[in-house]
């Protein structure tokens, strides 16, 4: 089950959770360090800043749990670059969290897989960029990483850990896209492809060279098929369609304690070393201003758009690339057009 489904189901069961802005789900970036050098990576290791210590992480997790946070996703960089990662998992387990792990799998050997399984994670998402070593390592730029990632997937599967393979849609590997899907199916794992390619955290646009063209995007969505692209989108008007939930019932905490709406949206709500999470989440001015935007009707550039029903607007991209999270995201518009075009092809017998 994907990491978002639990949140959706519980907020359906109890509408108060969404109304009261309970921070139901948090993504903790434990480090920006990594054992790979992927071409499209957005992470920037901020030299001179100290990562949160184990005791700081424990304090944050306790604060979040007291506020109703149920699900924690551990991410990076690469989570296993933290020498104390298993200690962190132990804290999350003691605090009765649903645990999700993002990893490239390179450091996951038999012993690590056994320990991961012992923490009963809801799931593990493993990044995989190609169906062959050549394709995969063209992106990771580390020889041998493909076999190690495959090994991790198999070791976790053997231990009944729910594994999802994920990959961004990259120009350099797009021609192998269908082979990746075949590989995922042969490994009996779920898969998801992400069309969003972001600039680096320091706004370096280098990763954007990997973005697909419009035609490639349309094809990519068609590959994903009718399980992802529905025949009819939900008929929501601008006033009915909620904006991305980031910062409303979920958020991200950086390795240095900065609290953001999302991993790629650098509107800083506060820092957990300076204030309690409670104060940041409920009382910071940045949060109060941000939460005035609840539906597409609150975004002047978008409220009259004909594509609202299909829109996949990312406020993080609007902020990073277009200068304001209060306006359009040109890249989100482009993705939405590709979704609409893919739907026409999928349901009208297009090639």
């Amino acid at each position: 089950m994907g990491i978002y489904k639990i949140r959706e189901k519980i907020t359906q069961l109890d509408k108060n959770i969404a109304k009261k802005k309970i921070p139901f789900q948090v993504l903790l970036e434990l480090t920006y360090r990594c054992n790979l050098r992927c071409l499209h990576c957005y992470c920037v290791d901020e030299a001179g800043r100290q990562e949160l210590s184990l005791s700081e992480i424990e304090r944050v997790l306790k604060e979040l749990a007291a506020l109703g946070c149920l699900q924690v996703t551990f991410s990076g960089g690469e989570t296993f670059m933290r020498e104390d990662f298993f200690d962190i998992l132990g804290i999350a387990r003691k605090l009765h969290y649903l645990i999700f792990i993002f990893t490239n799998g390179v450091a996951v050997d038999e012993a690590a897989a056994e320990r991961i399984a012992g923490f009963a994670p809801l799931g593990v998402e493993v990044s995989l960029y190609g169906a062959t070593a050549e394709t995969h390592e063209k992106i990771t730029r580390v020889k041998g990483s493909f076999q190690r990632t495959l090994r991790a997937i198999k070791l976790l599967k053997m231990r009944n850990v729910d594994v999802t393979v994920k990959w961004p849609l990259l120009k350099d590997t797009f021609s192998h896209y269908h082979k990746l899907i075949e590989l995922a199916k042969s490994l009996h794992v779920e898969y998801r492809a992400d069309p969003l390619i972001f600039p680096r955290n320091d706004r370096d646009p280098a990763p954007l060279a990997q973005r697909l063209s419009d035609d490639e995007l349309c094809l990519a969505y068609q590959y994903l098929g009718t399980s992802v692209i529905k025949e009819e989108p939900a008929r929501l008007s601008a006033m009915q369609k909620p904006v991305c939930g980031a910062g409303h019932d979920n958020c991200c905490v950086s390795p240095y304690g900065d609290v953001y709406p999302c991993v790629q949206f650098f509107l800083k709500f506060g820092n957990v070393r300076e204030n309690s999470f409670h104060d940041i989440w409920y009382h910071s001015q940045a949060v109060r201003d941000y939460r005035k935007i609840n539906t597409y009707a609150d975004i002047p550039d978008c409220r009259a758009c004909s594509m609202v029903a299909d829109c996949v607007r990312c406020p993080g991209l609007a902020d990073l690339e277009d200068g304001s999270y209060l306006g359009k995201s040109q890249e989100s518009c482009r993705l939405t057009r590709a979704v609409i075009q893919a739907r026409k092809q999928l349901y009208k017998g297009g090639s």
Partner: protein
Amino acid sequence: MLKGLLKRNKDIAWRTIEGTTFLVSPFTKKIYPLNEAGQVIWDSLEKETDPACLAKILCRKFQVDLETAKDDTREFCEQLLEEGLIEAVG
């Protein structure tokens, strides 16, 4: 008939949010919202407890007769066991 001690499965995620306790199993992927009586039992299972003890707790809390409390406890605990949310000890 339930015998022996029971305890929570340590791998079950749970949280009380706005007065409702939600259990989520990472194994079944299911969500189990608990009613008030369920929450009392779940809280009591923080430590190993036997069903008779749980029934007495329900009795006191909800002013019901012991037989009703025993029946409710048994039915609820059997469901929790079946879903893997609790375990029998020993």
